[in-house]
């Protein structure tokens, strides 16, 4: 049996809250969030960076948390699905997902919302093709993507942006 490596202390900000977490240096950030931080909203769908169910924002950038080692999360600012709503007030995007059927089984939804938020932050007025590309890293097996786009388009409209 290999010798156990020492766990490290990861200090980061998650959804605005400072947290100190102990983890193995190569533990996946996905597992650190779900297990040590108790934030189970971020999901594992593939473990290979293909499905996007584990999408979060790391220092403002959309990343697949299953591909980030804990050691690289030290000092980082992280946004997960739990940080998207403002307390009980849903964000415009989440509200649009509700009214427009953007979520069916819901397992891809947290990652999809993070990806959509990130898209809207980068493109003030996304075209349909920019929306498709922005979400191409998030696989959904239930919706065929149609109502996800409609939800994003609706969110743009509600936020006063042209889509």
């Amino acid at each position, binding site marked *: *049996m290999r010798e156990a490596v020492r766990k490290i202390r990861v200090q980061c900000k998650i959804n605005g809250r400072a947290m100190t977490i102990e983890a193995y240096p190569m533990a996946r950030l996905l597992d650190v969030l*779900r297990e040590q931080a108790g*934030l*189970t*909203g*971020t*999901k*594992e*769908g*593939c*473990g*290979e960076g*293909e*499905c996007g*169910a584990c999408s979060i924002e790391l220092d403002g950038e959309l990343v697949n948390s299953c591909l980030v080692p804990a050691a690289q999360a030290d000092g980082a600012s992280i946004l*997960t*699905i*739990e940080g*998207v*709503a403002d307390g009980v007030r*849903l964000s415009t995007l*989440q509200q649009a*997902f*509700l*009214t*427009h*059927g*953007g*979520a*069916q*089984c*819901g*397992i*891809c*939804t*947290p990652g999809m*919302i993070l990806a959509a938020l990130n898209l809207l932050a980068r493109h003030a007025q996304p075209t349909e093709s920019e929306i*498709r*590309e922005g*979400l*191409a*890293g*998030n*696989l*959904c*097996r*239930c*919706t*065929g*993507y*149609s*109502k*996800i*786009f409609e939800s994003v388009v609706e969110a743009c409209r509600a936020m006063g942006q042209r889509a």
Partner: protein
Amino acid sequence: MEERQIGKSVPRKEGREKVTGGARYVDDLTFPEMIHGVTVRSSAARGRILGIHFEEGIPWDEFTIVTAKDIPGKNCVALLIEDQPCLADEAVNHPEEAVVLLAHPDKYLLEEARKAVRIEIEPLPAVFTIEESLSRKQVIWGEDNIFKALQVEKGDLDSAWDGAAFIVEGEYETGAQEQLYIEPQGMIARASPAEGVTVWGSLQCPYYVHKALVRLFGLPKERVRVVQTETGGGFGGKEEYPSMIAGHAALLAWKSGKPVKIIYDRAEDMAATTKRHPSRTRHRTGVTPEGKLLAMEIDFTLDGGAYETLSPVVLSRGTIHAAGPYQCPNVRIRSRAIATNAPPHGAFRGFGAPQSVFALERHLDRVASAVGLAPEELRRRNFIREGQTLSVGQVIRERVDMNKLLERALEMSAYHAKRKRFAEENARGAIKRGIGFASFLHGAGFTGSGEEYLASEAMVRVTRDGMVEVLAGSTEMGQGTNTIFGQIAAEALGLECERVEILQPDTSLVPNSGPTVASRTAMIVGKLVETAALAVKKSLADSGFLKAGYGAKEFGNASRQYIEQFGALGSLVKYQHPKDLRWDDGKYQGDAYGAYAWAVYVAEVSVDVRTAEIRIEDFVAVQEVGKVINPVLAAGQIEGGVAQGIGFALYEDVVWQEGRMVNGQMTNYIMPTSMDVPVIRVHFEEIPYERGPAGAKGIGELPLDGTAPAIANAISHATGADIRQIPITPEKLMEMLESVNA
């Protein structure tokens, strides 16, 4: 009276939890003292287990180890029959067959331990294809490798050929398809001789799992409890397989005395669990000079993998759908499900029909061409009408107008104009365009006497504070069960949907409503919910506590008074099979399904002949489905189903090597991304079905039947390639293009 809930796009009941990350799927749950479990699997396709060796370097005394010897009841996964072991004992019959279970608190150490278990197997010759299985060089199951064989006879086929002006033959194949729910399979179990067995997990059919655990442990029914957690997609892949993983988790819990969680990673899920049955269909069709169907001879074979599981039922649906929504006086369908040494194939949305419908709709385009008719004209001359009979002898007693659906679909897709334009434009340039369609039907509910056999139940109950509860074993997995049950009950009771709560499917709480499969949940179980809700309303009205014109407040007061006086307010309804639906299982004839959805789908494609890449440019889905209960949810079902159908047609290729799927990663098993799916244009026609709740029929599986053949016909139109097989990969198409041009 105007409907207040039905026909409205009421937001998803559990939607808020899903968009905030609050929904709890099985891997989100932890229990005190919970440990983790993994499965050690066979690498051989077939063989005798000679021994199990535990290598050095692992602290084995810390582990719970379970083999077949530890099974308290019968070593089987009880389903239609009991041929499939829960853990392989003396022999293995497919790669990835489960042999040993391990549990430990450290899930990483568990992985190391899994690698350190060596299963010594003496290999036996194995069978991997339909041809090999039918040849019976090796008999790997039963007497003859055949799980089930069926025969449908209508008219006098053998004499009919003489009258045929054209006879067209063809052979068609479909490959396996992985359900690829984004949430992998998972279970948590607590079990002990004192407490019995409880499992929580991702599943579609709590009572299937219940039955299997009762048998595995030899326990009385009341000592086994199954709870469905929020389920991240199923599509049939979580119909029967969860009984296996639940059994495994429970066996480890039983032996360790601790709660055990087993979660598959994607690689294990893809390699070890069920897939859509691969198929081979042979058609021989005789038509009159005017293109009227005279004789249809169909030979339909499904590859069932190593154990029977649900193959007879998949075969049944595939067989009954094999001759389509057409009138043909003479039909023979001979079909069989056969065994190979692959992990057993199982339920996947469509359940045999996508396979046989692909063959039929591709074949009919070729028949049209042989006769010199446009594909749509051939269909028009043969669409079944009310009063005519399907191949199994079912008289169509519902209103159906396939011509109207066809016209609508062709109009929405600008089919005729495009057919003409593409024929001209395709002469130039590297991009060839095509447009094609498929016309089809899909029966809702269990076949024949299946619903009678299931004897499903559902309950509606009111609490002291006037909240309505729906108790049913039907599960939510994204398709909208919770929401539509809420709408149905609310409509029947004259309340808002917020007043209705759907209880979590828990076999200790809810009745057995049958499995959440077969496009039956809205039509069959929804009807039970509606009936129960109406019975509750009648009880209240009859008691005098509830007066006409009541609102929510009055309903609450009346309920409270009723319960104070009578103790409880509720209604449990059991399914009553309509007396006028008769099915003969021996002759395979009669009323196969209570109702059908009818559809025409049109696909427009472009093919870049330099790379043989195919792009779906436009997709139109027109269907008649009875009353649409929730437009957004219903459209979502069609759109999602079409996307899966696009995968089935073009991308989802299971690469097999000696019975094992070798491309079991999302990088290598390709499902469509948002860039691969076009806007899908959905149109519903509604002819209310009097036996459905508010007139609804079933729609869940429908889109899987017509999508792939519409695409295949479009590609054929675009390139002249005579498609016979799906998935139509660029590699295969490139080869065909080169021979078309040669």
